[in-house]
């Protein structure tokens, strides 16, 4: 036994070194794979051979190949990804909504300024056909600008809705795959596999990496949290949901209604992450801005129409409405209600072909408001600045969450990622260890050769 023991010991060393080399090359090959966790060979001493002189070591066993995963860092990275997903989406969408407004150069404020100028020019020469046409075209410019903001926001909402659906579909696909993994992983786990009498499988590292990557996606897009069980299966929960999204192999998918509400198992839920950001924009942020702009346009139209109705056109008839819209739809439906320039009521009813009093009164709306409220222009700029402030806050929040997410992600990749230098060292180490073990073999071999060929020759 004793003389062959070293051969066995050396063999175990060679085997361990081979596994080490395999693992190092696997690590190197996957250095750029998303969600890959660095793998490490676990070694243990073989149980010793007890001889009369003491216990003699019998070599090394490869007990497993494990992932260097830190679940605490995972938790941090996921919660920061969820926050960044929500705030980043909100900031991006709000910025786009603001860009559609076109302030300060191409927005409503510029077209409104053109309208006031047109009224003043009409007051300079109320009987001029050119001045009247100028007012109509300024009204057209204003209503066209409002409608293009309306349609821009509508298509932004459509985009966000499509994105919401697509992301939810991805989430549902991930949930289904996690249910599948919950079946595969426990079966492959050594503890459960052994206890159930199955064959030895080792850690299913690839499946575990896939599971963790899916959980990363779920937190970034949904803000869902997860709980790992000892057998490697995962339970995915969503705060406020009546049932777990994934529990064992049971899946509760997320359904999206036409009005962008989400529900799980028939009950409405609120979510975080990217989907939460999209939903918040569609249900809260954008409708709030639309309502404000609608209210502003409503006030603008009623102020203009009231003042216009106070005047008379050249034929002596009171002024009709200048602008019109379907109630509640000012932003998409605002249109010029007056088509004949001769119906513009520039006069105040006291007669005279060149009576300009009502044109003056319309032009005076530039700086004042008849009801003592702030002027139309300052109400518009209040709205614009309100939106700008929200965008700025959202962008600031998104930036700070981005930094937190970057920090958490790098902390995690510091622990989980592949360091090529480290792997090179490991390669050299395993190579040397293989060489040394091989040398042990040749040494034992030579010793045996001496024993076999050189000893006992005396009796020949």
């Amino acid at each position: 036994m004793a003389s062959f023991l070293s051969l066995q010991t050396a063999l175990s060393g060679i085997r361990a070194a081979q596994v080490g080399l395999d693992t190092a090359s696997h690590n190197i090959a996957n250095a750029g794979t998303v969600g890959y966790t660095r793998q490490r060979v676990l070694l243990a001493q073989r149980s010793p051979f007890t001889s009369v002189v003491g216990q003699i070591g019998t070599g090394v066993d490869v007990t497993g190949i494990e992932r260097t995963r830190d679940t605490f860092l995972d938790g941090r990275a996921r919660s920061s990804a969820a926050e960044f997903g929500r705030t980043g989406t909100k900031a991006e969408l709000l910025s786009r909504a603001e860009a559609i407004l076109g302030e300060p150069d191409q927005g409503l404020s510029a077209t409104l300024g053109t309208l006031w100028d047109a009224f003043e020019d009409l007051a300079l020469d109320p009987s001029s056909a050119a001045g009247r046409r100028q007012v109509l075209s300024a009204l057209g410019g204003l209503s066209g600008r409002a409608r293009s903001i309306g349609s821009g926001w509508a298509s932004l909402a459509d985009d966000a809705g499509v994105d919401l659906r697509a992301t939810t579909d991805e989430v549902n696909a991930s949930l289904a795959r996690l249910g599948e993994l919950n079946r595969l992983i426990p079966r492959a786990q050594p503890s459960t596999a052994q206890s159930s009498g199955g064959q030895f499988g080792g850690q299913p590292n690839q499946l575990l990496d896939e599971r963790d990557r899916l959980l990363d996606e779920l937190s970034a897009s949904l803000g869902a949290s997860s709980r790992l069980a000892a057998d490697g299966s995962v339970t995915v929960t969503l705060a406020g949901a009546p049932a777990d999204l994934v529990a064992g192999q049971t899946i509760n998918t997320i359904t999206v209604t036409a009005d962008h509400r989400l529900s799980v198992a028939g009950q409405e839920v609120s979510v975080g992450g990217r989907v939460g950001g999209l939903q918040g924009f569609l249900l809260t942020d954008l409708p709030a801005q639309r309502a404000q702009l609608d209210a502003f346009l409503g006030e603008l139209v009623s102020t203009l129409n009231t003042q216009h109705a106070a005047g008379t056109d050249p034929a002596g008839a009171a002024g009709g409405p200048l602008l019109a819209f379907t109630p509640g739809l000012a932003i998409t439906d605002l249109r010029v209600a007056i088509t004949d320039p001769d119906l513009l009521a520039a006069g105040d009813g006291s007669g005279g072909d060149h009576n300009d009093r009502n044109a003056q009164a319309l032009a005076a709306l530039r700086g004042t408001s008849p009801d003592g409220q702030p002027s139309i222009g300052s109400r518009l700029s209040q709205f614009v600045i309100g939106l700008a402030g929200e965008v700025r806050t959202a962008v600031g929040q998104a930036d700070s969450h981005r930094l937190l997410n970057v920090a958490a992600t790098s902390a995690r990749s510091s622990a989980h990622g592949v360091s090529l230098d480290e792997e090179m060292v490991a390669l050299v180490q395993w190579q040397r260890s293989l060489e040394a073990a091989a040398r042990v073999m040749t040494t034992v071999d030579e010793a045996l050769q001496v024993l076999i060929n050189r000893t006992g020759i005396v009796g020949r």
Partner: protein
Amino acid sequence: MRVTSEMMISQSLQRLSTRLLRYERAQSDVATGKRIRTPSDDPAGASRALTLRASQRAREQESRNADDALGWLGISASQLQSAVDRLQRARDLSVRAASTLSASERSAIAQELESIQTELVGLANSSYRGRPLFAGFAGGPAVSGGPGAWSYSGDTGEITRRVGEREGVRINVTAAEVFGLTPTDGGVFARLDEAAAGIRAGDTTAGTDAIAAMDEAIRLVSDSQARLGANTNWVESAQLRGQEVLQAIRVELSEVEDVDLAEAMMDLQTQQVAYEATLRALARALPPSLVTFLS
């Protein structure tokens, strides 16, 4: 801390893109010359900028209104000056008519008075850019009728021009005010009728009556002239003030909206250097690994 390749690459890219973003920002600052491109770049500044822009537009419009007002006032004043000249001539003729004259001389004077009257009617009905000067808001002639039945056919409309934020200046006078026309009285035109008829008929008091009437008419026109002159001064000073305000607004708007070019250029330079340095650092840090040195 363990540094892994993934971490190194992702962090380097992160830094590089942050640098590039700042570089781009600095570059577009210089290219556009604007500090505020969307209101969210600086909500407080954008709020001021919007107010200032509206104010700038209003002041520019006031300046155009003032130009128009000065045109009206100038034309009206020169028409009134002609009227005073004509009335002065009528007064001179009346003085001559007050002394004893032959019938043919009186007839010549009466004829000239009548032609002065026609000229004054023409002045009263003159228009500027297709619009009667002295008829208020009315579109037709200011004075109509004929001998014995002169009447004012305009209205009392006061044409005003906004030359300041809340300053409306009246720029017109009506023929009724200038020539003393009332619904019951033909004013200066009736006086000229009476003078011409009296002088032609050899009425001894006609000349002296006409002198008094012409003095009164000249006083009335001069009153209107004085009012136009005062309003012209008002418009001119308002325009001057408006231009100063406009200048101040432009300066302030530029302070709020525009980038300080020297500062922006410096910033661009700094960002460019920083970006290049990041690239260089990346180029140095990324390639070497143990692989290079193991042979």
